[in-house]
């Protein structure tokens, strides 16, 4: 149990007395795993990810990240926690008023990195996602696939122990989807734990790792080396 990075212990979540968004979920993600979480809209995937980021807290049960109960973290510790987690979203969520370079540098700046490190690390990850020639562009000047690669670069530049990708390919065409999946696999190969949510069967099948299937707030299947089934 000591190598588990994320642990959900009988976690339930209710929004304003409605039906449970999460219903007594038990989940254990170990260091270095690549977990795909699949399910229909409203199955509870996003709620689950938000709890990992301490954006939401369980109504019942407990969420432990690196053995720390998120509910017992102070504001500052939540900020510290987020600096250890890289996040990628369906709608990219880049800072539009900052250039590609600045978006990536921002993640390092908030972590208090020195200028010399930033000047080395940012071009390095831009190379990893193949965008070194777009460093001075603004997000709005890039294609969807390119923006998502910037978002991934921003997520991994802090060398997170965990990368969370919430429908990262939801807005992308098949070619860009393939590229993003390849980048995520490469990051996982380098030792980062990846938690991915998706609707896309092709994505799950090409990753080929552990697949957790959710429905109505419950985990209904959990196959290592599984396939997409709904």
């Amino acid at each position: 149990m000591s190598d588990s990075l994320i642990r959900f212990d009988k976690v339930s979540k209710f929004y304003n007395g409605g039906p449970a968004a999460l219903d007594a979920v038990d989940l254990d993600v170990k260091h270095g795993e690549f977990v795909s979480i699949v399910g229909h809209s409203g199955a509870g995937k996003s709620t689950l990810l938000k709890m990992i980021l301490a954006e939401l807290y369980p109504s019942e049960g407990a969420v432990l990240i690196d053995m720390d109960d998120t509910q017992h973290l102070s504001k500052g510790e939540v900020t510290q926690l987020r600096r250890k987690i890289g996040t990628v979203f369906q709608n990219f969520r880049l800072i539009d008023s900052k250039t590609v370079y600045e978006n990536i540098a921002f993640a390092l700046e908030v972590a208090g990195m020195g200028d010399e490190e930033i000047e080395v690390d940012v071009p390095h990850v831009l190379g990893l996602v193949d965008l070194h020639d777009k460093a001075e562009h603004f997000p709005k000047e890039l294609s969807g696939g390119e923006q998502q690669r910037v978002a991934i670069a921003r997520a991994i530049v802090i060398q997170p122990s965990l990368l969370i990708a919430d429908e990262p390919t939801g807005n992308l065409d098949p070619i860009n989807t393939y590229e993003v999946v390849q980048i995520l696999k490469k990051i996982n190969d380098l030792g980062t734990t990846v938690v991915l949510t998706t609707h896309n069967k092709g994505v799950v099948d090409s990753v080929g790792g552990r697949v957790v299937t959710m429905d109505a707030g419950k985990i209904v299947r959990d196959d290592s080396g599984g396939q997409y089934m709904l």
Partner: protein
Amino acid sequence: MLGTTFKRIIRAGVVGFFRNAFVSLATMLVMMITLFVIGSLLFMNAALESTLDQVKDKVDINAYFLTTASEEQVLEVKTAVEHLPEVMAVQYISREEALVIFKERHKDDQLTLQALEELDENPLGASLAIRAKDPSQYEIVADFLEGQMAVAEGEQQIIEKVNYHQNKVVIDRLSGLTASIETAGLAFTIFLTVASVMIIFNTIRLAIYTNRDEIEVMQLVGASNWFVRGPYIVEGVLYGFVAGLFTLFLFYPLSIYMSSATESFFGSFNSLVFYTSNFGMLFKYIVGSGVVLGAVSSFLAVRRYLGV
């Protein structure tokens, strides 16, 4: 680490200021309008104050002494009056001076001057012209002088009359007017200042509202509250500083233009003289309010979008 963060916050604010040039310009124009209102109030208050001072200066009361009163007696009363806390200044006009003034005033009136010549003695008594610190205080001074008039037995009366009652109506009206103008001016100033603050606050809030998604993203990436808030406050300070400077400089040509008009209307007040001799004070109030309002508005506006 703290220095680096501070430097980055300043840099991000300055970059944001120049990059959102259009939003910055629009925000600063609105701020200029409101700072202009604040500046105009400073001018108005100064003009009003100098006019009121001038009118107040023209009002005094006089104690007229009998010709039989000796100079020592008059000066004794003068010293006593000067010791009243309400009194600002006392001017002693001797009998001889009164005669000179009388002759000067009637220099075109030969008949009166001839009549004066007929007398062997100067018929005019000495007098004291008394100015109080505030028009409402003349009553106290007048009461004191009238107390002096009621002489003890065996003593001679020396004060002939005090002209307070003739002046009372004018003095009362003036002190009423001064008080109500000052109250109205203060209420007007407070109202316009509050309105200005709200306009600036709302303008900056709108400018930041467009960035609310960014603020959320910054927090998700792990930025602390100060790291998110700082650049916006720097931007707000820059808005206020630049808008304040422009407003201040805008008053210069206006002061020149209004210079002779204000002088002839208010008498003692000249806008250009006021501008140049009070530049430091104007700078402090106009640029200072800009900077403070910019910073506070940004601080409050960002706080609304900072969840955590």
